C-alpha cells in the first residue's frame, strides 16, 4: 500500500489555495473583497490563486456589474469540494500514520 503522502494534491497544497478552499468549503458564493480580507492576502495574490483554481475547475468566478463597479463572486465547485476533502483526508491519514520520521525521505 502506498504512503498517503503520494495522494497529496500539489495544486491544493499551497497555503493560500488550501486556506481558500477550506474557507469556501462551507460557504455559498462570496465576494472577492470579503475573501481577500478573510485570508489576509492582497487582491493580486487572490486573483492569481483564483485563476489557478478556476483553471482546475475547483472554483467558479462570476463577475456582476453593480452600478459602475463590477462585483466578483467566488464559489467552490463540486470538483473542488471533493478534491479538498480528499486532500484533507490524505493529510489526516499522514497525521495518524505515525511519527515525523516515518515519512521523511532523503534525496
Amino acid at each position, binding site marked *: 500500500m502506498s504512503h498517503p503522502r503520494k495522494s*497529496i494534491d500539489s495544486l491544493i497544497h499551497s497555503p493560500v489555495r488550501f486556506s481558500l478552499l*477550506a474557507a469556501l468549503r462551507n460557504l455559498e458564493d462570496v465576494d472577492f473583497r470579503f475573501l481577500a480580507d478573510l485570508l489576509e492576502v492582497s487582491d493580486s495574490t487572490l486573483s492569481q490563486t483564483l485563476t489557478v483554481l478556476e483553471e482546475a475547475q475547483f472554483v467558479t468566478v462570476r463577475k456582476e456589474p453593480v452600478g459602475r463597479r463590477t462585483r466578483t463572486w467566488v464559489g467552490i465547485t463540486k470538483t473542488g469540494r471533493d478534491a479538498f476533502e480528499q486532500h484533507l483526508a490524505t493529510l489526516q491519514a499522514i497525521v495518524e*500514520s505515525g511519527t515525523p520520521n516515518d515519512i521523511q525521505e532523503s534525496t
Partner: protein
Amino acid sequence: MSENTFSVDDATRLVAVGEQAAQHARRATRWFRAFVILQAAYALAFTLSIDVAGAGYWKAFAPFVLATLCIWMIAFRYRQSVPRHGLRNMGIAVATWFALYTLMLDPALQLFQLSSPWWWVLAGIIAVTPIVACLFASSRR
C-alpha cells in the same frame, strides 16, 4: 513545501490551518442567518401585535420600521460578507410578506369573519415564510 521534507508536523499544521480558515469563514458569515431570523421575528411580532394583541396599527408599525431599518443598516454595513443575492432576496421576501399579509391574508380572514386568534397566528406564520426561506442557500440559486 518539497515532498522530501513534508512531515507529520506539516500535515498537522495544515489540517489545523484548514479548520481555522473554515471556522473564520463560518463566523464571518453567520450574522446573515441572525439577520433573517430577526427580520422574520419582527414581521411576525408586527402582525400578531395588531391582530392578536389589538395594538393600534401605527403604534405597531413605527417600532417595526425602526427595528427593520436598524438591522438593514447593519446588514448593509457588512454587505461584503452577504451571500450572493442575499440582500436582494431578503428585500423581495419582506415586500412579499407585506403584500401577502396586507393584501391577501388579512382581508381574507376579515371576509370570512374568522375571529379565533389562531387564524391570525397561522396567517402571520404563513406570511413570514418567504423571509424564513432566505435562511436556505437553495433560495438564492
